């Protein structure tokens, strides 16, 4: 179970670092969060404590808000620059 979560997390990290499409980056972040959720639930089951599951629920709620804001930013970027390629969104630099 933990192995599955680790694989999922690693896939998310790869997606965040390697994908050019901003929407896919956001989805990769979602993957990582869910990997964490799986871990939380797994430890909750293992340790017989409800806290982990409650915390997972919180993470899902925060993730929903995060995706909402993230997608809104992506839409605004698209409107302004006609692209959602993160490599081209590099105004804030030296």
């Amino acid at each position, binding site marked *: 179970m933990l192995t599955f979560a680790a694989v999922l997390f690693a896939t998310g990290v790869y997606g*965040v*670092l*390697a994908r050019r499409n901003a929407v896919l980056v956001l989805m990769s972040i979602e993957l990582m969060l869910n990997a964490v959720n799986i871990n939380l639930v797994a430890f909750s089951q293992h340790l017989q404590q409800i806290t982990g599951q409650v915390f997972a629920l919180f993470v899902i709620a925060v993730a929903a808000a995060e995706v909402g804001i993230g997608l809104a930013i992506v839409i605004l970027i698209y409107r302004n620059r006609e692209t959602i390629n*993160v*490599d081209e969104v*590099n*105004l*804030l*630099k*030296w």
Partner: protein
Amino acid sequence: MVAAILLQGEEAAEHAAAAPNWFVEHAWIIVLIPVVSAALTLFLGKRTPGRGSVYGIVGVGVSFVLSLGVLWQFVQHGGGTYESGVDWFQIGELHVGAGQLVDGLTAVMLIVVTSISLCVHVYSLGYMHGDQRFTWFYVVLSLFTAAMLDVVIASDLFQLLLGWEIMGVCSYLLIGHWWEEHVNSSSAIKAFITTRVGDVPFMFGIFALVFATGFETSNIVEVGEALGSPEVSKGLVAAAALLLFGGTIGKSAQFPLHVWLPDAMAGPTPVSALIHAATMVAAGVYLVGRLFAVFVTADPWVLTFVAVIAGITAFGAATMAFVQNDIKRVLAYSTISQLAYMVAGLSMGPAGVTAAYFHLFTHAFFKALLFLGSGSVIHTVHSNDMSDMGGLRRPMPVTFWTFLIGSLALAGIPPLAGFWSKDELLVVANAEGHDLLFVVLLITAGMTAFYMARTMMLTFLGAYRGHGHPHESPATITGPLVALAGVTLFIGLLGSPQLGAPFGQWVFFEHAHEAEFVVWVALASTTLALLAIAAGVMVYRREGAVERDPMLRMGALTTLLVNKYYMDDFYFKGIIRPVRDKLSAAVYWSNQTILDGAVNGAAGLTKVFAKVVNGFDRKVIDGAVDGVGNLAGFTGGLLRYIQSGNVQRYAAFLFTGVVVLAIIFTRI
């Protein structure tokens, strides 16, 4: 500055007591008035009708009236000493005051100074008429009067010194009043520097006195009291007395510093009358009497020294008066000689004080009279030289008669002023056993009578030898002459033993002085004077005696006297020239070589050091500062490339960092 000090005195006096003593309590006003009039003349004089003379005349006139008031109240209260004052400044524990010390001596001196100053102020109206610096002349005249009054009234040694020095400056300014002629300005410088030689010891004498009291006080009365205590060392008091007497030698033109007074005759004649006959030169004598406690406390040899100086001066100056052709120089040497009389009186101890001051008192009047009379003659003849005069009796009757009264007074013919005072001195000298001094003074009296007879004959009798037609001087000149002649006729009676000698009740040291009348002394001096006058008249009545003056035909003796015993030459060759040529050259050399060398060396050293410091500053300090800045800039330049703006690269760094930290923390 005097004004400022006295204004402080004003406040203090407001709080002083009771009205009955008004004149005595407010004696300081007498000093203040001439200061104000000097200031008024200076600032408003040129815009005032009469070119500012009115301020001085009115001011000194008011001072004179107040002085009479002071003497009147003083006599009414039967004498005593009235002292008041305020703090002037403070040095450590020493409070230096400024105030007034009124006793008989002060009261009498106030009269002398203000009355003669008034005469001279009026006289100058005529004598200085049309002078280009007329207003300035009156300014200095008033300032001088104020300074002399300050000396007279001073209750503190430093206050006295202040007036003393201002007098010196005024004397210098007035001698050099006609400075366009080189001889006048050099006479002024000579007078100033010669008196200064005496003033420096005087100043140290004051310091010695203050030191002797343990820096407790510089008040004249308190100093006198402090010297009575056994703790004060005798040697110190003797030293102080000698140093103070140095001031007297300078100011009162005693041997060996008498050389300035004859040359001071270069000044206008009213100045000679006021400063160099009646008042300033008397300040030296006044000083000795004012601080007589010092001289009495000191060992007896100090007074013996004073007596020796006085004897030499009295006799030597009288001899030099024989050969003078300048009428004012005759009077100048006579002044020196008469001042020595006063100093001689002081050297006889407490008993001589009254006699000395009485002589000062009478001498001031008749010598001022003589000088003003000679001024009247000079004003008419336009020459100081008696060989240009003669026969002035008829055209100038007022001048002649007043001058005659003055001459007879100086010669000591009764009942004129000089007789009583000179006789009193001789009586005291005889009674106190100063036999040698007695003889010297008696001979000097005879010599005085002779040279005054010579002066009278050469000036007023015989035939006129000058140019133009002499005429009597205007009323502003003859008025003061008549006034002074009147005073000279009767003032001597104040010290006449037959009339109880009230002067001795006013002016004395410790005990009131009873004047004595010793018949043989009076007879001897009068006979000698009459004989000398007769001899003088006989010699100068002969035909051709004027052209071939026997006084100038005594061979080596005349040469010696005309050259003033070679004292001027000695000073010039022995002191001035070595100082001027050798010492000043040496000083110049040391200044150029040693001092300038040191200064330049120090400057050079500083420059080198500054260069080193400059280099250090630029290279090391600035280098360090710039280096820090440059390093920051350089590293910043390297690091800025990390700031790529690529979010994914940031995220990569983030993860790398997390991984690294995770590894580190698991290891730990």
